[in-house]
């Protein structure tokens, strides 16, 4: 075990897989020599050579589209979008090809590929650097969408993602890239995709959250506890496939649901989870299942961003409202 932040643990997962499987290549803007603008791929080019870890020209559609070509020809590319807000030029390649190639070829050409992208806000960044658009990826048939919330999870989930024979959008909560440190095994381990993780048990209310918001929710859970409210906290881990069962089981018990995330509210992941509990646990609902997301607005520039991003107090406020419903 070693104390790591998420940058370290992702770096370690990448290095481990590069070591193990010579079909893996890593590239993106500044991913090579520089090790990425967040230093996530630091040292990998030095260790594995420029053929395997390299810089690409500045063109996201090409990064994604060439990776599809590599994947069908037997490589296993792990590509980087510098920020999730700059993945949009690659949208057509992802929705029209990467997500569909296995089905289109009836399994002849699967697409083992990971698209890593730092996402999310509260880093005092310029516009486009704080996007949280996971619902859009979740809505695209054929993709898997994964979001870790700790260094440990990031490692185990990323290894699973790289070993998956289907494409994974791997969204990294950059706000906590270095903010959370924990002991992480230096051995190889995997965390299965598609399974949520119950972080705390409680009887009064279920909270489903993921990514950087988990840490904020945990603070609100402490506040709730002081008021004798027992929160069951589920870290979703995978946006798609979504762990319907874990969510349903929990809400059947608590009768109350709050989803906390940082995306625009309408047509988001929150709505999906609310629909799931209606489908699976309707008769158990004791209060309206609720979502606490960002606003239906562009994420404000840093001076106004605090309004948009949910803090523990805001989360606690919603917990209290729900429990008192």
């Amino acid at each position, binding site marked *: 075990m070693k104390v790591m932040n998420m940058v370290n643990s992702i770096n370690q997962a990448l290095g481990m897989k590069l070591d193990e499987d010579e079909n893996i290549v890593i590239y993106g803007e500044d991913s090579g020599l520089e090790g990425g603008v967040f230093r996530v791929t630091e040292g990998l080019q030095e260790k594995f050579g420029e053929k395997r870890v390299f810089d690409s020209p500045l063109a996201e559609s090409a990064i994604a589209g060439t990776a599809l070509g590599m994947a069908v020809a037997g490589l296993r590319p792990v590509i980087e979008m510098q920020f999730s807000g700059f993945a949009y030029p690659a949208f*057509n390649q992802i929705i029209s090809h990467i997500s569909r190639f296995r089905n289109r070829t*009836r399994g002849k050409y699967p697409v083992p590929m990971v698209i890593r992208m730092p996402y999310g806000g509260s880093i005092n960044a310029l516009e486009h650097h704080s996007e949280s658009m996971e619902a859009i990826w979740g809505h695209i048939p054929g993709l898997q969408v994964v979001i870790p919330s700790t260094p440990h999870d990031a490692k185990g989930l990323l290894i699973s993602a790289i070993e998956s024979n289907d494409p994974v959008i791997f969204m990294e909560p950059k706000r906590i890239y270095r903010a959370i440190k924990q002991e992480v095994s230096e051995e190889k381990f995997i965390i299965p995709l*598609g399974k949520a993780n119950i972080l705390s048990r409680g009887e009064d209310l279920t909270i489903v959250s993921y990514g950087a918001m988990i840490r904020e929710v945990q603070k609100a859970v402490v506040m709730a506890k002081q008021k004798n409210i027992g929160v069951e906290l589920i870290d979703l881990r995978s946006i798609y496939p979504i762990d319907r069962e874990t969510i349903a089981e929990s809400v059947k018990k608590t009768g109350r649901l709050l989803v906390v995330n940082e995306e625009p509210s309408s047509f988001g992941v929150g709505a999906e989870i609310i629909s799931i509990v209606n489908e699976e646990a309707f008769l158990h609902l004791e209060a309206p299942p609720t979502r606490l997301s960002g606003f239906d607005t562009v994420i404000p520039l840093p001076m106004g961003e605090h309004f948009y991003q949910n803090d523990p107090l805001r989360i606690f406020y919603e917990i209290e409202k729900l429990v008192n419903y």
Partner: protein
Amino acid sequence: MNFKKYDPLKDIMYQVLDKNGNLTLADWDNKLNDMEAKTAYEKMLFARQADIKAVSYQRQGRMYTYPPNLGQEAIAVAAGMVIRDEDWLVPAFRELGTYLAKGMSLKEYFLYFRGHEDSLIFKNAKNFLPFSVPIASQLLHAVGIGYAIKYKEEKDKVVFTFVGDGGTSEGDFHEAMNFAAVWKVPVIFIVQNNQFAISVPFNKQTASVNIAAKSVAYGMPGIKVDGNDIFAMYDAVQTTADYAGKGNGPVLIEALTFRAGAHTTSDDPSKYRTKEEEDNWAAKDPLLRLKKYLQGKDLWNAKEENALLDQYDLEIERQFEEAENYPTTTLDEVFDYHYEELPEELNRQKVAYKKFLNWKETRK
């Protein structure tokens, strides 16, 4: 050929066989002998016949919308004569001659236009991606495959990829050319410049003198070739594939041609071009030209052609029947190929649908 001689900026076009079937280049027989020239013609004839029959199947309501290849056969057949099993083919959707060479069956081709996914497996073909509907997006796949070839040091393998004149306007064209040149990968980009993107003529597509010249922007060689001249096309594809296979990096070939038919069976070209333009190009038809050449050498006659056509018709009809008799899509097939393992959520949706089907049954 020495493709440095055909400077695209001067808009010089490489041609071997003029429209009257006369060689404009001496010594041609060293490249393709009489037998090979005859074979080339037969392949073009077959591709054309299959294409014509596809259009008629569509008219009969036995296939959905279909994009004819009429007038462009030389390009695809030439590429087909060069491409090998181990090479990769990343198609657009108007290169029937190459698909056949690469091992696609006509049955699969027809099945595709009858709306069945199984068609795209190309069961007996290796290294052949599905047709690409989103224009120009496929070029990037070719570049990625090129990278994989280089990475694995699979010496002398080449990727052939196709796009139309319209497709050169897409951002993906640019990104693919740029990445290919920077990475120096073995990709032959063949632009079928048939002068129209549906109804939009070349001069509204780009102000460039031609398409081959676009190669300059990427530090890549480019040549403009008479796409209705199978000899020139064969030579260009063969020479550049050899060049790329030796590790010299990608090449752009502009194959100048004319889409003699409609864009698809839903299109009516008379809305946007003149009869005169069409007639003008009909005189430059690739089959006509090669036939004149072969007839000049007494290698071909009408009787032979008719006999062959009869034989082709039988073969094409047989394959079409196979496509028509192919089992229809099942519910499982709609779901089961999206992931290696069927996710719970997809299974749930499938089961729900089966319940509905049961209910429907009992209701009768």
